[in-house]
């Protein structure tokens, strides 16, 4: 069975005749009849009480969660029962609409994506046991005087905001999320790393290649209207 979405609109008195129509869509991939096969599952996000306007937004879906230009669909519902409470939905910086209490939305999502910052770091000079390199809050200490082993140790760490790959003594860092994180400051320069060179004082961690990122311009944010607890229900169907 495929995934089917149905909308029914009824009104006995909006116009002079009854309105009663229904439309059903089978959720398929872009440009073909293959069923959508991936989703985030139905979930809820709590917005806790407190703070003052403007209230903090939350990112509900990042563009990287889906295929750009795919036949992605988003479902959202404001579960509040207080009529005046609403969520404002944004795509990137643009305000799309307000979900008042009980309101729901179902719309296609382009998920156009930005690019991730990336750089390559390679140690040069003399590495000694005890030398270290600190980046993204992670300090890697060299166990010996082998630069390849030092690179492997750097690659073996789990960085909160970056992933790594390795080629001999060169470690490539790639940001986990698209955006202009500000770490890459030039084609051969980054900021925020620290070297501790115990002995020879000639250890360097050269940035041999670096590319700044760009932010995604289709992330879905929502902002609550009040400082009471509100709950947003949501689901992403993705290609």
């Amino acid at each position: 069975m495929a995934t089917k979405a149905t909308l029914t609109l009824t009104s006995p008195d909006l116009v002079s005749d009854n309105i009663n129509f229904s439309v059903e869509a089978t959720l398929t991939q872009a440009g073909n009849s293959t069923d959508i096969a991936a989703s985030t599952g139905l979930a809820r996000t709590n917005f806790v009480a407190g703070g003052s306007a403007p209230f903090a937004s939350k990112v509900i879906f990042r563009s990287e969660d889906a295929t750009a230009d795919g036949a992605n669909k988003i479902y959202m519902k404001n579960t509040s029962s207080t009529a005046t409470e609403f969520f404002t939905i944004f795509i990137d910086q643009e305000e799309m609409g307000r979900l008042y209490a009980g309101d729901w939305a179902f719309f296609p999502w382009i998920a156009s994506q930005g690019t991730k910052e990336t750089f390559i770091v390679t140690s040069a000079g003399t590495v000694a046991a005890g030398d270290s390199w600190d980046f993204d809050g992670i300090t890697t200490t060299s166990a010996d005087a082998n630069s390849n082993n030092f690179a492997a140790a750097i690659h073996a760490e789990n960085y909160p905001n970056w992933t790594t790959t390795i080629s001999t003594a060169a470690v490539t860092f790639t940001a986990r999320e698209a955006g202009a994180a500000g770490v890459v400051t030039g084609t051969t320069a980054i900021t925020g790393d620290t070297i501790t060179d115990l002995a020879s004082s000639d250890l360097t961690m050269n940035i041999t290649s670096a590319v700044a990122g760009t932010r995604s311009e289709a992330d879905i944010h929502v902002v609550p209207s009040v400082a009471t607890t509100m709950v947003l229900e949501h689901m992403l169907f993705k290609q």
Partner: protein
Amino acid sequence: MATTTATFSLRSSDLIPSQVLSLTTSKRLYKAGSSSEGVDHLKMGRHKLSSGVAASDLFNADAALNQDKSNYVYISNASTTKSNYVEVTVIGEHIGRLYAGDFMWLPWNADLVTSDISVLAVNGESTIDYALFHEGETLVLVSA
């Protein structure tokens, strides 16, 4: 006051094998912040969108439309050619593609006079059905 109800359901037995999806939600369309006054204005129709033509405003958020109110937008792509899609834009931001048979339902608060909703047919002609349930607007005076 008009009584208009929008009901939505999602059903799938195999999208998440361990969790049958069977969701139904229903909402009477009220004016912004109200739980008693129903939305009482409607625009609806059908357009044939030619491919290769620049994007056009389907709903114009000009000063005549009540801003930051309860406006509900319905658009469906009635095309049967799978590769044809309609690109939907809000405030100049592409939000997504309505492929053949797809529909969307979006609360739209027409926050700015530039918060227009526009549509563009891609890969071929598409016919769209549309409706805007809203709280009213001031008709624009005829130019002298």
